[in-house]
């Protein structure tokens, strides 16, 4: 399914969608990978990862079959 990017995270990465990088098997490792490749993401006041449409903690395992999303600070309403 790959990784969806929204809002300013999409602007920083320059794409709304990417494949899950190889050797990344949990949420914490994905965040670290994203910060390494797109350091501007560290300037966000928060960056959550959603797995299959629910907010996930760093320890949650992920695979290429999951719908993963990068969620910068929300601003609905």
């Amino acid at each position, binding site marked *: 399914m790959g990784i*969806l990017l*929204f*809002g*300013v995270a999409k602007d920083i990465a320059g794409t709304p969608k990417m494949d899950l990088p190889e050797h990344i098997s949990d949420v914490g490792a994905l965040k670290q990978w994203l910060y390494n490749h797109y350091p501007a993401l560290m300037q966000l006041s928060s960056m959550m990862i*959603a797995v299959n*449409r*629910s*907010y996930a903690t760093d320890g949650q395992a992920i695979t290429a079959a999951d719908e993963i*999303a990068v*969620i*910068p600070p*929300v*601003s*609905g*309403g």
Partner: protein
Amino acid sequence: MDVLISIKETITVQEALDFIQSPECGGEVIFTGTIRNHTKGRGVVKLFYECYEAMAISEMHKIADHVKAQWDIKKLAMLHATGDKYPGDIAVVIAVASAHRGIAFDACEYTIDTLKETVPIWKKEFFEDGRD
């Protein structure tokens, strides 16, 4: 509790009122969020609302579940607009009907506060001065 959850291009207060209307309820509390013509002192031309729709709907249902568990609310409508919105347009409507007005205020305020914290919707602001 009956729940109406909707994310779409254009929303109206009336559809929320129509949904929560019930002769069993005596008190209705409605919150509407409209686009302001300025923010932090800068003139606003428009906002663009982007949405991770499948997850946003799921998070809105979680809020509704929490409202149902916490208060004796009969009807809850949660509507959010997407796309380009201009000053005066409605971005969000929360409408709650209950037999008792105190809990209707509490549930309505909880719902909009939590929506703004957890529901994956993002606004991008376009200013009169053209800068980001």
